[in-house]
């Protein structure tokens, strides 16, 4: 019985839903089926996000507090989460009439955005540090190619007025050199990325077929 619900039924559902959705791409008659199935999936995915939040609080940080590892930080995280949750729920309940959700907006614009944007900004410095140290750590042809490609992109990402005309044409030899280099890099990048996309696509197809035909059962793991 347990196996029925934990293994057999999930597998059957996976295959059925997947096959219907996939066939709907081939058979327009199944488009409505696909819409319904997708809608259900979206709702379940929303539950999954909520589940993620629950796990974050209960599974990770409550556990940390019990273990005494970084309890203060975890506690601050939980408190801030609970506080925010309470405030936002209260706003939705008490200020339902205001579609602008001022509290939410304030929190988003003045707390979340500055901090998250700053975290992204930190990346610039650390990428620079990484680029500086790259050849010290790794002296391979690939690394050299990597840095050369990066240099070309950096030098050509912003059109330099002394080399590129406003219409995009090369103003001089330097411009031609820059643009030629950038075109080559773009060709290399496009070719490499296309190969990468094809590889990803093939992998996706293979994995999807394996899931739909019971070969893989990620849902049971």
């Amino acid at each position, binding site marked *: 019985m347990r196996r029925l619900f934990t293994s057999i039924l999930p597998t059957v559902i996976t295959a059925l839903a997947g096959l219907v959705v996939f066939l709907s791409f081939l058979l327009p008659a199944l488009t409505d089926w696909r819409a319904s199935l997708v809608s259900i999936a979206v709702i379940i995915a929303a539950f999954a996000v909520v589940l993620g939040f629950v796990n974050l609080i209960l599974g990770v940080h409550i556990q940390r507090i019990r273990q005494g590892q970084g309890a203060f930080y975890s506690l601050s995280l939980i408190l801030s989460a609970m506080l925010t949750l309470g405030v936002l729920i209260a706003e939705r309940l008490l200020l339902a009439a205001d579609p602008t959700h001022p509290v939410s907006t304030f929190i988003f614009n003045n707390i979340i955005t500055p901090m998250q*944007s700053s975290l992204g900004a930190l990346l610039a410095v650390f990428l620079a*540090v990484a680029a500086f140290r790259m050849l010290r750590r790794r*002296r391979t042809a690939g690394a050299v190619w990597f840095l050369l490609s990066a240099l070309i992109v950096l030098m050509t990402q912003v059109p330099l007025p002394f080399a590129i005309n406003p219409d995009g044409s090369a103003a001089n030899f330097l411009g031609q050199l820059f643009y030629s280099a950038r075109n080559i890099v773009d060709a290399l990048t496009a070719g490499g990325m296309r190969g990468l996309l094809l590889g990803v696509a093939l992998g996706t197809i293979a994995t999807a077929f394996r899931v739909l035909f019971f070969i893989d059962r990620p849902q049971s793991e």
Partner: protein
Amino acid sequence: MIYCSNCGTANRDGSSFCNECGTKLPASGSIKCPMCSTLNPSGKVFCDNCGARLVPALAEPDAPDHSTPLRRGISLPSKSDVSGSKGGPVENVPDWMRDASSEEQPDWLQRLAGNSTGAADDQSAAEPAASADLPDWMSNLSASVPAETPIQPASIEPPTTSTTSADQVAAEDVPDWMSNLRATAPSLDDTQPSAPQSAETPDWPRNLSAGAPAVTEPPAVRNVANDIPEWLSKLAGNAPTVPMTPIKSDLPASGTAPVDKTESADIPDDWLSRLVKPAPTVPEPTPAPAPEGEPPAEESSASDSDASLDWLTRLADGSMTMPEESPTDSLPAAELSAPNMPDWLKEFGGTLTSESTNTTDVPDWLGNLAASMPAESSAPNTSAGVPEGLKDEDRPAVLGEEPSEISDVPDWLREFQATGEPATSTAQPAFSIEEPAAAEPVAESVAATPDWLAALQPAPPMHAEEEAQSFEPAAEPMTETPDWLAALQAAPPMQAEEEAQSIEPAAEPMTETPDWLAALQAAPPMQAEEARSVPIEKAVEPKVKIEKPIQPIRIEPPAPIAAKPIEAAQPTAETEMPQWLRGMSQASAAPAPHGPIAPIPPELPPELREEPAVAADLPDWLQALRKGAPAGGTLASSGIAQGEIPEWLEALRPQIGETQLIDEGPEAETEGVLAGLAQTLPSVPLMGEVHGTPASLKVETSAQDLARAGMFQELLARGASTPKPVVGLPGRGAKMRRRVGQWLIALAVLVSMGIPAKMDLNKALSFQLLPHLDKLPTTAVRLAFKTIDQLPDGSTALVIFDYDPTQSGEMNPIADVLLRHLIARGTAVQAASLNPLGSSVAQAEWLKASSQLSDTVQFENLGYVAGQSIGVQQLLERNPSIGLVVDLAASPDNLRWWVEQIAASNLQVPLIAGLSAGAEPLALPYIRSGQVKGTVVGLVGALAYAQYTGLSPLSTASQATENQIHLEAQTLAHWMLVLIILIGMLSALFSRGGRRSAA
């Protein structure tokens, strides 16, 4: 050399009897080292050669010899025609037998002798057929031996039935008193179910069994009861006083035990137990060489409890140190039939040490007996004239199970054979089976070699060869244990009692057991173990069994030694052994199962060997038996004359090197409850030996495992080494350098971005170094612009905010210009997001964009859509009328989802992308494939798009300036990174060169 006083023949040192005429030779007083067999002058405590202790630690070497060993008694011809006795038996001779061969008999032997008298009765009964020829006293002796078996049964599974039957048959030929003994023998087995012989069992044995723990002694006593000599009866009388613990019903069905059980109930008082308590001083044993009279006489005296023989009483008394030790030995026995275990059995185990003092009073014959007894099987066999019928040949075949065969061989002998194996050997070191004692008596009547002797010889081989098997054979003997053996056992328990009590019921009786008995016991345990598994084939075997049970406990220490095969000794034996003995030996080899003589471990604790005191009173022949025993040293100290061990017995003595045989093999029990199991019973060498290397547990090892094992071994072999200081870990300085480098780079980037805010570089340099918003090339954004610009009026654009605040610094300008363009175009906007925070971003951006334009367009924020690509599907399905999809993607995956789902849904919706610069590379294929109809990439793209559309906030001066500053900052930051990378490359090359130079 010792010259015979009778014929003048030169006998080798240590000989007890003349090789030529059999005359008892004066004790040389030498003590044979248990370890190296070197003969040391009596009185020596340690071996001259190897330093091994010659005298038991507890023994008092100087103790006055109350009983000067009488040299009377049956002495077997040291030299015999017997060829049969040779190799086979000798090889198998257990260590304890070797000890026996030594000139000075160990205490236990002497004690045994004392007991043996009493026990003899039993033996006779048990060995009826064989015993016929034996003198009464010898039969008694043999009877006593069987008594031991009962103990074994307790621990071991007895093949009882067979023994009993054998006994009966044999009984016919046996003299009355012996038959009585034999009859009682079964009684010894009280614990054991089969009590066919109970009817015949004399009262005293019953008493013994009753009082005495499972020890076989009781049976012996019973037998004696009928024909029991007075001294025995006296002993019996004393028995009651002895706190004999009744034989446990728990006793395993071990062949011997069963018989006793039934009878045991009936037995009034253990004469032996009485003996023990009162500690009657055993009168110097009458048992002259003449097999008949002495033992019986003494036994009879024993019957009178009050007038119990001194030596017996002494044995019984606490004076015997044995009791203390006995507990340990008794333990095993106790479990099975331990309570009844005689002390002497315990002593076998090695506890005997203290016994030596007591033994002094023991009559010679008794001492001799004791010597033989310990050997359990061998001694009794030799002492009693084994009926001819009981030849070696017979034994092998019969041993326990077939009565007919058994009939020829006295039970107690068979037992010896059976037990001879490892267990006995270890424990028995004190007793040397080799002792001519057994053979000596025969010597006088060599022609009619008693069967029991023959049986003895054959048995030894068994031990040597099949140590593992020993267990089994032992078991058999138990069942058939002759009464006299049972009697022996019964008595010992008395002594052991005190000690044993603590441990187990059986132990109690042991406490009071005379030392020699204890000594005997020590050995028996081993046998008993063996016997458990083995069905009792012969009556003799029972003895072994008894011993075995005891041994397990005590023997452990000696066990390692015990292993010594008798083989080495055998060759010598052959030459000197009388034919009948040889025959026995030969036969014994074959009958392995029956009762291989337990090889006395040469290394047996000195204590065991030192029972010589008893030997003093032993009849000559018994003394002769003793001589072989290594314990001789103690004898000397105690003043007991040591007899010479006949060569054949000497030959039987196991060599030191042979000890290991015991280890050879734990074999599975073949019968009984434990059938099929190996090493389930405590084997002798619990301490030192690694017994059951589970061959069956072999684990398949793969090459990898072996490799790992090898590596592990290698690591272990390296030994401990001081760990090398960790080199290369970033020290504080390195960390600081790294951090400073990071600070410098950060500072450089920030400064590069801050410069445009503070100064106009182009002006300062008078060179168009940095781009200007107005002159930005717009080629890249024209396609996107065109796509939006060509949207039909009234169409709806689905703007997807696939980014969160993290990328808002870059993505917001893109979203801003695109929204403005859409608003300007009058296109309705539906916003959505695949990122939970994206909907808020959308809301904020819409507010910002729409606030700056007067145009009003329909705007709907669909909010967050879960499911990623699934969400894309839902959005596309729910908004089939959208004319444009604008994906503001910070991640290339988001764009891919949109491209793919649009294609999969077969929608012809144009898609343009506002991309983070980092997402551009992966978007390139889609851009080039035409699936994306235009892109706006990064901050520069947004500025270019704004500049191209003219809808940018450039209209506001402040915003224009701000955007220009951003553009310049962005450009400078790019070049700064270029500079950083170049510096990094150079530094890398520099450091590389430095390394080379260093090299």
